[in-house]
């Protein structure tokens, strides 16, 4: 069960904390979920992220941001990391980093791209690729808090093999009543999938989303180009821009 605290601060100032890897599992061939134990983790909201800092023995450091993938389980938090080819950090975290190894992290961070279980408005989640991570945190927070707020998730990926959390989303979980999931496959669709492959478009948002007069809160996360297309479609369909929250990630040094 998620604890309520939002601030990651000890005495008001953000600090780096030690975090030890206690468990990991592959999500796809190129993505891995890492479970960390962080002593005295204050809890977080769905949609928040952390900064992770790696230090080599000679003092060289690299810092990256990763979304929290699920509500905290006591002092345990989950991050899902996509391997960026030729990246400096993500290949290490997804391949070499082993149970018992440690990093430093600070957070939880960001109070804007968040969903609070006390909210009553319907929710539309639109994920592009690894942009599913903070949105899955919202789906999971809804489940564990027993929220009955209606959720719709539109999840765009290249192919079925690129789906994160595939089983958890395919098989209805207890508490997931009122969650609808629609898939957009851009390159390769599974057998029996009626939508032709191709980029997300107005029809996908129309069919898989909510009418604007329902005044849903919309969360869009994915690569910059994807987020711009979806946000433009939502506003063109009549959604209040203030209800469309975005989280972009560009080509990075991963």
């Amino acid at each position, binding site marked *: 069960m998620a604890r309520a605290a939002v601030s990651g601060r000890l005495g008001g100032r*953000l600090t780096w904390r030690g975090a030890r890897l206690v468990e990991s599992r592959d999500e796809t061939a190129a993505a891995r979920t890492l479970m960390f134990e962080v002593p005295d983790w204050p809890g977080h909201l769905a949609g928040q992220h952390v900064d992770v800092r790696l230090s080599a023995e000679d003092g060289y450091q690299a810092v990256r941001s990763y979304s929290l993938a699920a509500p905290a389980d006591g002092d345990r938090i989950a991050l899902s990391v996509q391997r960026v080819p030729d990246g400096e950090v993500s290949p290490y975290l997804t391949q070499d980093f082993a149970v018992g190894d440690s990093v430093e992290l600070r957070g939880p961070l960001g109070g*804007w791209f968040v969903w609070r279980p006390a909210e009553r408005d319907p929710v539309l989640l639109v994920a592009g690729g690894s942009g599913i991570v903070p949105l899955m945190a919202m789906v999971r927070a809804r489940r564990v808090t027993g929220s009955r707020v209606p959720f719709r998730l539109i999840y765009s990926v290249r192919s079925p093999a690129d789906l994160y959390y595939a089983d958890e989303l395919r098989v209805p979980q207890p508490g997931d009543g009122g969650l609808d999931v629609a898939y957009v496959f851009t390159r390769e669709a599974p057998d029996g999938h009626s939508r032709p492959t191709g980029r997300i478009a107005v029809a996908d948002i129309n069919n898989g989303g909510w009418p604007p007069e329902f005044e849903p809160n919309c969360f869009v996360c994915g690569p910059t180009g994807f987020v711009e297309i979806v946000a433009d479609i939502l506003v063109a369909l009549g959604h209040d821009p203030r209800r469309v929250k975005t989280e*972009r990630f560009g080509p990075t040094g991963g």
Partner: protein
Amino acid sequence: MTELYEDGNALAGPLGEIFAVDVTVAIQRCAHCGRTGPVAALRVYRHAPGLVARCPGCDGVVLRLVRTPDAAFLDLTGALNLRIPLEA
């Protein structure tokens, strides 16, 4: 070509080193065009020697943050003001 920017959400960690409140939820008013919006919705360029946050309306620079080993330089001349929500 895709532009190399992200959302102002990315400022939460770097600004969290400086401020005791989450500045990304603050509403800023752009000094160049007068547009208002959350800091979290600025366009952040961070593949650079520092963080540069620009107005999504006019691309004017709203905020710059440079972190040195022992200091942070913060330039907010591009924001007329920040409305920071506080508990009543």
